[in-house]
């Protein structure tokens, strides 16, 4: 709360200095003692933390890296290439993401599956995360829901530029996703056993109309859930 300074001449007590100095020292000492000897609320949802009042310190800083603030829902996080259920990328190397990317940081080379009903896949799929401006256009442009920014993770820091160039092996991770019109579901794929295929067909979702549909979010991913997880971790650590 901002400290209000009224524009008035000092009264008698203030013009005597010493009582005010002692009062100021008293205020500082009070806060010092409270922050030093009373507990700090460790609720990872920092906006909900209690501060001040009896039994709580005024201090709301995070003890990074033990405590981490969850990112806001608007934060999408690092790219990932969405896998099919058999571990291959959903991506068909259509270059839509590379075409729209304003930072021109996506590099793709297409190749052909010898046997799969989807003929094309990215033999090379590279994103230069240093150049990426995290606009999410690639996610919007993808006609196959094959690239997402739903990991909620920050790009890990590194000492070399080359470590920030993510290739398909690093990008391909996270839970797989199926849609009813996936060609490998419709036509079958030599790399998916028939019973697994039946199961996938039963589970497949209708195709979302916009890329940011709830249906196209990674199942189980939410900021609240992440916060709750962190809270549990913190409590377990305290016990």
């Amino acid at each position, binding site marked *: 709360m901002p400290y209000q300074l009224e524009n008035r001449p000092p009264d008698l007590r203030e013009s005597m200095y010493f009582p005010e100095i002692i009062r100021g020292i008293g205020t500082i000492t009070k806060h010092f003692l409270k922050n030093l000897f009373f507990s700090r609320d460790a609720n990872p949802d920092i906006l909900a933390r209690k501060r001040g009042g009896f039994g709580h310190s005024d201090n709301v800083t995070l003890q990074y890296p033990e405590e981490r603030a969850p990112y806001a829902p608007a934060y999408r996080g690092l790219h990932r290439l969405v896998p099919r259920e058999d571990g291959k990328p959903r991506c068909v190397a259509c270059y839509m993401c590379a*075409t729209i990317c304003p930072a*021109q940081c996506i*590099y793709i080379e297409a190749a*052909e599956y010898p046997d799969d009903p989807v003929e*094309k896949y990215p033999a090379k799929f590279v994103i230069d995360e240093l150049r990426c401006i995290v606009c999410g256009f690639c996610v919007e442009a993808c*006609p196959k829901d094959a690239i997402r920014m739903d990991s909620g993770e920050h790009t890990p820091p590194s000492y070399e*530029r080359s470590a920030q160039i993510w290739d398909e092996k690093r990008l391909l991770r996270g839970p797989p996703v199926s849609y009813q019109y996936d060609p490998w579901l419709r036509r079958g794929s030599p790399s998916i056993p028939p019973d697994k295929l039946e199961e996938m067909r039963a589970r497949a979702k209708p195709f979302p109309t916009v890329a940011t549909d709830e249906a196209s979010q990674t199942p189980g991913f939410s900021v609240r859930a992440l916060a709750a997880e962190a809270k549990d971790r913190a409590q377990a650590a305290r016990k």
Partner: protein
Amino acid sequence: MAEEKKPDAAPPKPPGPPAPPPPKNPGFVTAIVDGKEVVVKPGTTVIEAAKAVGIDIPYYCYHKRLSIAANCRMCLVEMSNAPGGKLMPACQMPVAEGVTVKTDTPRVKDQQRATLEFLLLNHPVDCSICDQAGECKLQDYYMAYDRQPSRLDVPKVMKGKRVELGPTVTLDQERCILCTRCVRFMREVAENPQLGVAQRGNESFITTFPGQPLDDKYAGNVVDICPVGALTSTDFRFRGRVWFMSSARSVCTGCARGCNTFLDYLNDVTYRYRPRENDAVNEEWMCDDGRTSYKYLNAGRVLVAREGRGANAQPLPRKVAPRRAAEVLLPHVAAGSLAVLLSPVASLEDLLVACKVAKEGLKVGEVYAGGRADGWQDDFLKRADENPNRKGLELAAAAYGLAVRPFADLVAAAGAGKVKGLWAVGTEVPDAKAAEKLGALEIVAQSYGDAALAQHAAVLLPASPHSEMDGTFVNFEGRAQRFEMAYFPKGESRPHWALAAELGAALGLPLAFASGREVFAALGPQLGSALGDFAWDSLPSTGSRLGIVPLAAGTVDGRLPGNRDRVPSETTEDYRRAMSRTS
């Protein structure tokens, strides 16, 4: 029972259709298309008549060089003389005198939407996988005329996804809309009916006859005329997206016909040739051998000058290479044991400068013609002579009074010991075995690649092929055809004319050119009237396409190049500017 009354007189004839109006423009047919008056020759189809006044009628099966099938129904329009007011196929109906054609009424639009919905019913909408994306009429017309979501709620019909029709063409039967253009092309243009439609209704598909692959030499053209992505080129399949690529107006170097082509390139790599329309040369077709003849532009190139051969080879700095070449040649000039080998694969500009240097710098009286060995020939396009510029070589040599002798004479002269040094402008030779015999000579070679004669060169100068320069080829009929530079010379390679001019300068000739245009302006008049009314700047301006413009910034800090980046080339900025089309 009343007896049927016989009419005692024949009833008056019902009024027949009104007599056709007298022609407004005698000898021509005058009609109204969308309120615009069109005057065309009798027999012109509505589609062409509408095109003449700038009205586009969508079509799939119609192709102006093929017979009319009128089976796609995309081009239906309203015509005032249609029986019962039916919609008529504009591709098939000739315009008649006084007809009113309407192409934008609600009925026509509704029909176009319905046709598109029908065509897309079983189309797999593979656009993200399909190689034709960006060049597909289904995509274009869907955006222009349809824009409706699919109402299909039963599974689509599934057909062969990857049928290898032959060595050059792969078919996706699901994507085919059965316009039969490919079938008609094979029957009428290639005159080798290898394709047909099998089955009925929505089960029908395009196929070859059992056990007979689509191996015609002109089969590649069906990929170009297929309006959708059903027929794809096995060579180009999945190698790049067409919207990234730029096209330069070029000429095929596969044979002496010199088919007009588009050279599609990206990041200094040539990806494919497509035929460019020229009624006088190749209409709009090209042969499969020509289509794949681009490969030497990309692979196996020499990019730095070099001295010595085999294990002793070492790179030569660009500045000293012409001087070293001159030092190798000069003793042979003095001894009269020098021969000049010119390749008919080089352009007219290259050969003009080379002939000038040969005549005035090296003081020879005759040149030998190298070039690729003869191949197959037919009565359509392909010529046996697989060199694009033999006529140009003869013209350039004649302009400088040099006699042209065949390659065999050079081998004989070298065998007899009369020739000890050789300057080869282009190292293509018709006979690889004979080239081995020339290995004993002291050779200065200008070469695109590092094969055959180039391996025996004492001094090898890297040359740029036609994708990297502006120039002219003269085809076997004597028709001079310009081609345009697609990208800057790779590495330290330079066009033959630049290398020859540098060599000439090292020999003391006052030669310096900044562009192919300058070469032609300076030396072209030597040719006299041999090229007819050819004008160097007359390359038709339509048709070249600039792809997505690459980022100006390179990837200098070691990052991987994005696929639109132009990695900075070694050529200096000054030289690049001098070589560029604009300055």
